[in-house]
């Protein structure tokens, strides 16, 4: 959440940052410069015109900055005082330090040179903003798997993966053609065409157990079988945060009932079982009976052994 400033202050900050940027990108096209600073061309011309009037006390041509942008390309000279970029603010520093932490977790351990650089940069930034080193970011994804995915995406090849399906609690071998890696709220998915089911699927990357690049013919056929959706009604019996999070409930007061649609009967059964009596499935009746039967057979075993 970056602080937002009033318009004149926002502009002052932009002008101060423009000088070192132009200084290190002499001859940059005006429209490119406008794009970098996320303003219109007209606003950029306005900014440059204002800067043109600034300089050291005295304000004769000797002291003023020299800006040339009439040709559509921007050059600056005589701006030694502002030529170096401003230091990072606290927010900016924190965003970079956290970003570096994430980066560290995604660098494989055989790149000790890069890990060392990441550490040193995080340290230097932390000392600029006076931040103790208290952040850690870990990813649960294996580097080898990321490497294989990146290679397959780059070379437009297929992948052979072992995937753990949580609903079915099975590890399956699949041939897939990766399309893109997505990030949804910090969880990585691989969007791919799966040859086993002849359809597009999204795989949670952390559940891919192994991955290897393969050459595969790029044929895409849609399967005709559509999985049947299930509409269920569930009643809350005990207050439970786990239940509220699993079913995305905003109201989980005891005695309340909610409807939930899913395509997987197994997911539904397992979720109700895992709630351990905090919820009861009211319908559909056959799934209700199946849960009762499963709980009974587990109970019998615990009582017997």
């Amino acid at each position, binding site marked *: 959440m970056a602080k937002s400033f009033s318009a004149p202050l926002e502009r002052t900050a932009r002008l101060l*940052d423009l000088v070192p940027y132009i200084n290190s990108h002499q001859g940059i096209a005006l429209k490119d410069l406008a794009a970098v600073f996320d303003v219109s061309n007209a606003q950029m011309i306005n900014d440059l015109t204002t800067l043109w009037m600034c300089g050291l006390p005295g304000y004769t041509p000797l002291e003023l900055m020299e800006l040339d942008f009439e040709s559509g390309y921007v050059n600056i000279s005589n701006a030694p005082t502002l030529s170096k970029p401003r230091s990072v603010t*606290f927010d900016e520093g924190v*965003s970079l330090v956290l970003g570096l932490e994430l980066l560290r977790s995604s660098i494989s351990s055989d790149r000790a040179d890069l890990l060392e650089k990441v550490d040193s940069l995080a340290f230097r930034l932390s000392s600029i903003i006076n931040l103790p080193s208290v952040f850690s970011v870990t990813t649960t*994804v294996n*580097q080898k798997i990321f490497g294989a995915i990146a290679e397959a995406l780059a070379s437009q090849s297929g992948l052979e993966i072992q995937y753990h399906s949580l609903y079915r609690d099975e590890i399956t071998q699949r041939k897939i053609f990766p399309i893109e890696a997505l990030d949804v709220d910090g969880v990585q998915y691989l969007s791919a065409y799966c040859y086993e089911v002849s359809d597009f699927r999204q795989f949670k990357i952390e559940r891919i157990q192994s991955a290897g690049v393969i050459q595969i013919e790029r044929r895409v056929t849609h399967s005709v079988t559509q999985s049947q959706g299930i509409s269920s009604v569930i009643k809350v019996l005990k*207050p439970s945060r786990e239940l509220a999070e699993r079913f995305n409930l905003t109201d989980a007061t005891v005695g309340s009932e909610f409807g939930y649609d899913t395509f997987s009967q197994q997911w539904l059964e397992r979720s109700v079982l895992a709630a351990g009596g905090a919820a009861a499935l009211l319908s559909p009746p056959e799934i209700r009976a199946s*849960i009762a039967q*499963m709980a009974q057979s*587990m109970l019998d075993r615990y009582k017997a052994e």
Partner: protein
Amino acid sequence: MSRKIERLINLTIALLATKRYLTKSEIFRSVEGYEGSPETKERMFERDKDDLRSLGIEIEVGSYDPLFNDEAGYRIKQEKYQLDLGQITPTEISLLSLAAQAWQGASFDEAAQKALLKLNSIGVPSDSLTLPGASNKLSDGGRDFPLIAKAIADQQLLTFTYIDSQLFQNVRKIVPIGLSSRAGFWYLSGVDQEIQEIRTFRVDRIEGEIAASKGPRDFETPQNFDPKGVFEGGSPTSFASIDVRKGKGTSLRALATSTESLGEWDRLRVPIYNLHTLASMVLWHGNDVFVQQPQELREILIGQLDSLVKSHG
């Protein structure tokens, strides 16, 4: 509006260029844009100082000669104003760019992009470093991370409402000591002021706003706190002996410290951090998982299965 901006830029330049403190009268005389009655100039200057400070520019107040009772003067130190990361290589610039890109789409992205702009103004080009795993993204879920980071740096007190496992809302007061992320969730660790012990909270389970206030004066950061250790859950209280059908229970197997084959089944040794979390995980696997030990876990399971049978009968 342009005039005010010009004046702010000119003031910054003048205060940066000076080797000694500039007095107010020198500033009014030499920096363009200070006009009007002495009171008007005075007011302008006060506001300008505040504005520059709010942009993060430090203005130092001092006097030219401390031995004499001089008029106070002002300057901006180059070394404070400028970004100084020391010698920086193209690879390091690339790493910092990748770090900034991690926020794409999150509300922290704006700060990251501004930082990146400054890094790109150093004049060192980036190299074409590619990292396969660097497509990972960070999300702050709309939380005010700068507030949390500032509170950690300044040992402030954070007060917030936290939802416990029974959905009760509790007001917690902590002095934060660490922020960690794993698998898309953020975790805030701190010393809980009520029990004086380190506790870790999942940030998305915080209800409403987080308030920061002045921290306790005698606060001491606990020694040996390692933010990376948060997820190891400290040392497990004990171990469970759990039978898992072959080819099943992948998530339990991932937790196991050892596995012994028993034909159709495997016996796992699983560390226990929280009995109820483990019970829920066991139930998820239905008939493919059976707990041998400890008795305490078995009793929880029997009680829960019993109520499942009753509520579904």
